């Protein structure tokens, strides 16, 4: 079948502002949207720019807006986005560089701001630190994050003020705050309680809907808020 793919194009070397361009591509219903972009780039217009790597939803390179919704192009099949034209646009809220490529640096800066690494200065045992399956389960959901930015760039609070750390950073803080081996929960909670932290979240749930890993992001943010409010990780 033939599919129409309408892509928001922008080349900073030649264009004043972004514009749409529509391509016609032969596609199977089971093709990924990424396959369509590859066909366009490979055989119609080599200048089309987008990021991709693993092509099966793990590396997090190809988050973009597909028919207005943040998704991974490699995890979205043609049959799942309807029979009409497929519209593909870059993520919102991060500076546009070229076509579907946005500047990810601000996103990673927010990630780094929450101390996203295990902090525990006690000397480790000779073998592993023990952690019960229940303790491990406590933060399992937030270990799934692939830093694709689909959540943060779907968040109206982030759109209105990009100094908000955003859902992805909070997810990664959650992953350590609730890890029984970590000792820096208090510091992370302090960082997230400032004016650009968790209280910018107004439980709109866009992030949860956008997450390609199906992380319960709004719930995780709620747990962090509760920990700040109660001073307890229970």
């Amino acid at each position, binding site marked *: 079948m033939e599919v129409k793919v309408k892509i928001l194009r922008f*080349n*900073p*070397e*030649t264009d004043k502002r972004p514009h749409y361009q529509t391509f016609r591509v032969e596609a199977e219903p*089971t093709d*990924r949207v990424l396959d369509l972009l590859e066909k366009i*780039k*490979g*055989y119609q*217009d*080599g*200048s089309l*720019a*987008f*990021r*991709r*790597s*693993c*092509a*099966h*939803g*793990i*590396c*997090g*390179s190809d988050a973009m807006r597909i028919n207005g919704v943040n998704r991974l192009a490699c*995890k979205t*099949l043609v049959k799942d986005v309807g029979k009409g034209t497929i519209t593909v646009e870059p993520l919102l809220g991060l500076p546009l*560089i*070229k*076509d579907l*490529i946005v500047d*990810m640096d601000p996103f*990673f800066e927010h990630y*780094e701001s929450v101390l*996203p*690494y*295990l902090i*525990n200065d006690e000397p*480790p045992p*000779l*073998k*592993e*630190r*023990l*952690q*019960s*399956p229940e*303790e*491990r389960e406590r933060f*399992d959901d937030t*270990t*799934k994050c*692939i*830093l694709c930015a689909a959540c943060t760039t779907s968040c109206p609070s982030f759109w209105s003020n990009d100094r908000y750390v955003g859902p992805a950073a909070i997810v990664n803080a959650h*992953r*350590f705050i609730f*890890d029984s*081996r*970590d000792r820096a929960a208090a510091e992370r909670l302090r960082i997230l309680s400032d004016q650009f932290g968790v209280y910018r979240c107004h439980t709109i749930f866009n992030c949860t809907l956008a997450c390609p890993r*199906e992380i319960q992001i709004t719930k995780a943010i709620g747990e962090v808020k509760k920990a700040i409010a109660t001073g307890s990780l229970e």
Partner: protein
Amino acid sequence: MRFHQYDVVVVGAGGAGLMAALYASKTATTAVISKLYPTRSHTGTAQGGVGAALGNLEEDRPEWHTFDTVKGSDYLGDQDAIEFMCTEAVRAVYELEHMGLPFSRTPDGRIAQRPFGGHTNNITGKPVRRSCYAADRTGHMILQTLYQQCLKNNVTFFDEFQVLDLIMVNGVAQGVVAIELATSEMHVFHANAVILATGGHGRIWKITSNAYALTGDGIAIALRRGIPAEDMEFFQFHPTGIYKLGILITEGVRGEGGVLINGKGERFMEHYAPRVKDLASRDVVSRAMYLEMREGRGIDGKDYLYLDVRPETVNKFAALDGRTRPDGSPYRVTAEELLSKLPDIIDFCRTYLGIDPIQQPMPVQPTAHYAMGGIPTNRFGEVVIDEKNKVLPGLYAAGETACVSVHGANRLGTNSLLDLLVFGKHAGLRAAEYACQSQFQTLPKDVADFALEQLDSLRRCKGEGERVSTIAEEMKEVMMEHVGVFRTAEGMQQALTKLRELKERFRNLKLDDCGKVFNTELLNAWEIGNLLDLALVTTASALARKESRGAHAREDYPKRDDKNWLKHTLAWLREDGEVKLRYKPVVITKYPPKERTY
């Protein structure tokens, strides 16, 4: 052009590169240069686990792990390096845990372990639980944890920089030349030690589990600087890729009791590996699958088989095998248990196939997965450049890019993550030690010229020319057809002829994009050039090896030939495109070659 100076530069930010950077940065100024954001690296897609004889669930020993790896390698692995890796494995896994890696846990809070292909109790010959895992996203957790630790330790990153050339001065490595993707600005990184950790090159083949980014850049760069590639004919085809897509379904599925089923509904691995069946080595299983399909026993006679992990199937065959839990009770699984242990696999199947593996079997076919060959190194990560293992000062390699060789002719599952941890660490330590006691040499004025020439030769937007994607497609087809699971002299000759034709056509490309900002078309073209060079070296190495060993299965030479071929291939790519081959001996310490059965 911009200049930078560091003691150590690491090229690539997957598991090996990050591990190297983490250790090098403890004593030396270190920069990591990566064409991807580090968390996009392909290490993140590894699923089933990392092998280490912790013995958390049953008796296990590093010596058994060593022997299994030697046997898995079809005796082509260097036994001193294998013993080193399997002994270091235990410490490496504990170290990862201390860094914060969220392993799955046993009921008593220790690191959980599962069985994997080729890993056995050496006394009973039965599968042993050796793979330390974090659900079915162990690689994701390793990549995240190492990146987090690098941030914590203030490692310097140059993200989305493509390294194009290695700087050599007076026979010593002195840095790399790279292009910044966002601007096309050239950067010269002057360094006393360079660690190449650029991953694999599975994109040579049509059906592959490998990311788009896996284009063998490090090996191609080294070949162009006169450094040989070792054992390139050995490339692993993983048995269970999703039909047509090649996306990997972890061997952990079979570790949890899943079985392969042919078109007649038979569990055919019983005939090929009577003792361990579906958990035989990957080369053995992939060949068995091809033979089944060739005999018309694919599903509906087609070129795929079923991987069946439905609880009723698992429980039926576990009962027939007499499989038990560590406490001695019969092995039985429930849908909930499988969901918790294999969530990503179930998600892949639902997304790409529209099926639920708890209720339906998965259509699978072998998929090009892992390079056993690569840049020759010793067990300290130092690059060695001839039959006598002469060290090239200042150059290191680790991970899939390197060939130590610990995987020989066939890698065991879980040993790739182990390889990148152990040799990434030691390459980092050794490189830092060397760099700190070395003097910077003066760089020549034309230091970036070779890199610039390579790009200029591709940057043509006017006149007639071919699209690079056409050339890439033809390469992938011919390699899949003739240099895949089974090989013949005739087929490989055809492949060589075709590859030479493609290399010629590659000189006459036409691009649509001649801009400077994220010119991904230009860089993709450069990557395809790398793949073409590696395909050529792979095919020439394979054609010369007149035996079958591990992943290299010749229909015209079906037997292993230790008398003539118990040796490593070293291949040099000459400027005229010819491949020069020499050989070096395999290191054998404790385990003399034996017949290999499972």
